[in-house]
């Protein structure tokens, strides 16, 4: 009888673990945790697992299975099993969240390099649109005047860093992801805006429209974004930039 109780518990936990993914998928929140390229594969595998666990549970009920061969032990109840149960329940009951600006300070601010010139000319046929495009152009290039006057449309959140922000400029941040939230890397762009701290707070999502201009920030001439308008917006459906390859 003990085994049957444990088997049901094990199967329920496996099913609940599958349901975490299914729930996030139907809430359109799965991409807060993994890159979109994995969504289809993840859903297929979780559905297969649900069917198999379902078959097992139905068979056990139908055949009134009360025992299992000794060599197929499911192990003793342990702290690790409890940890799994807690993680699964937390995934089911807590609302899905993207990484916050707290994680920006935990992660190195890096810039991409892919063997191409640090300051490439902008292709007029496909001008940079995404945050990661501007991050690559402005943070890789040592020529602050190179992209002067270029129009920029960006969405990101306010990163309240005492080291980077000044009275008339702040950092707009966004995470880029190559696999899942565990490898999220923050990208930062400087927005020149007077008296920003009285209007915006940390983590607030903003839509910024403006142009690239050189400006002295912390004693260094830097390519910053001089906004025409800055509007608070709700967090977008896809708060991360997904690495394209």
């Amino acid at each position: 009888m003990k085994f049957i109780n444990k088997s049901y518990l094990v199967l329920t936990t496996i099913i609940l673990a599958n349901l975490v993914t299914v729930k996030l998928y139907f809430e359109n929140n799965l991409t807060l945790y993994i890159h979109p390229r994995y969504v289809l594969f993840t859903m297929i595998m979780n559905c297969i697992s649900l069917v198999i666990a379902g078959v097992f549970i139905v068979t056990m009920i139908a055949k009134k299975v009360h025992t299992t061969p000794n060599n197929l032990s499911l192990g003793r109840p342990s702290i690790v099993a409890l940890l799994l149960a807690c993680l699964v329940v937390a995934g089911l009951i807590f609302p899905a969240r993207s990484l916050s600006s707290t994680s920006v300070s935990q992660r190195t601010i890096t810039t991409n390099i892919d063997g191409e010139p640090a300051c490439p000319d902008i292709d007029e046929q496909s001008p940079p649109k995404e945050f990661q495009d501007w991050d690559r152009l402005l943070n890789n290039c040592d020529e602050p005047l190179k992209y002067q006057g270029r129009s920029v449309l960006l969405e990101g959140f306010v990163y309240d860093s005492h080291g980077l922000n000044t009275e008339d400029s702040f950092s707009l941040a966004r995470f880029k992801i190559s696999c899942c939230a565990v490898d999220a890397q923050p990208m930062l762009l400087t927005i020149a805006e007077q008296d920003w701290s009285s209007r915006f707070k940390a983590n607030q999502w903003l839509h910024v429209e403006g142009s690239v201009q050189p400006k002295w920030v912390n004693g260094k001439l830097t390519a910053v974004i001089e906004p025409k308008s800055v509007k608070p917006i709700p967090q977008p459906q896809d708060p991360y930039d997904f690495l394209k390859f």
Partner: protein
Amino acid sequence: MLDTITITFRKYRHVAVGLLAFFTAYFLTSKLDTILIWFKVQSYSGYEDVISKLQDFLTIALSVFIESFPFLLLGTLISILVQRYISVELFRKLLPKRWLPRRLIMSFLGVFLPVCECGNVPLARSLMNRGASPGDALTFLLAAPILNPLVLLTTWQAFRFEESIVIGRFLAGFLIANLVAILVTTLLRNRNIVTDDFAKSCLVDDPHSHGASGFAQNFTVELWPMLKMLAFGAVIAAAVQMFVPRETLASVGADPFLGIITMILLGFIISICSNVDAFFALAFARTFTPGALTAFLVSGPMVDIKMVALLKTTFTTRAIILICSLVFSLSLLSGIIINQVIR
């Protein structure tokens, strides 16, 4: 009637308490924002930061879990197919008897199974179950996440401007996987490598494993220990990421020797899938030397926090410590050699 209700309630009281706890927790979390506002008024200003850290911790732990879970499921399915349809005799016939060609086949088995490293653990278990030695299984386990076409393609895409990293990754991956397997089997002898529980499970064939329900039963029994350890690995990886700032690691990036150690440590902490780790490493190309990047790309897929947790289902603690130490030292050596070669 009352008696029936009382008996039914007594019988299912655990389920009732569980459901009550679940819905109470659900109600509280659905009102989380209101509760937070209340706390913010009543409490001190650092509260918001703590909540934000906890939320990020949960997001990272769940992301590792959700990303790795399907690969673990796929690996478990393949491993059950191997156990059910390849008999021990057939397996012996298929594999060369001579040591060298057998290890070569094990090194390149990943070419046919381009899945994430965590999916290889159940498969390595089934290989041992079919009669492969721990050394053979270890060679496969360490080589497969690197020596497969998908990883080759993504590494080439990311580092086509620095061929030494691409070549270095695959050459070092092959050599380290084989060297570690040889050293571990020589130093520990075969019986001290796998746990007693796993060794026993390899000796007995399950008489009830026929048909769909048998398949489902095998699936559950194979998956369960690894699922538990995956959750454990995900939680530890998230905790380490939250409390060890990457800035600390990056500050030593420029040093050729310390840079390699740093990237090996980062690979251990980050627990990222080998299919895409080259793109993650790309972001560090300006700060770190090619040797450090190669060491990250070799060491990370072989051993990381998540993998150590999964290895614990099959290998002894002594074997895992030895595997990790050897992978770290040999990756460090490969990083130093690459830095010397391209200087």
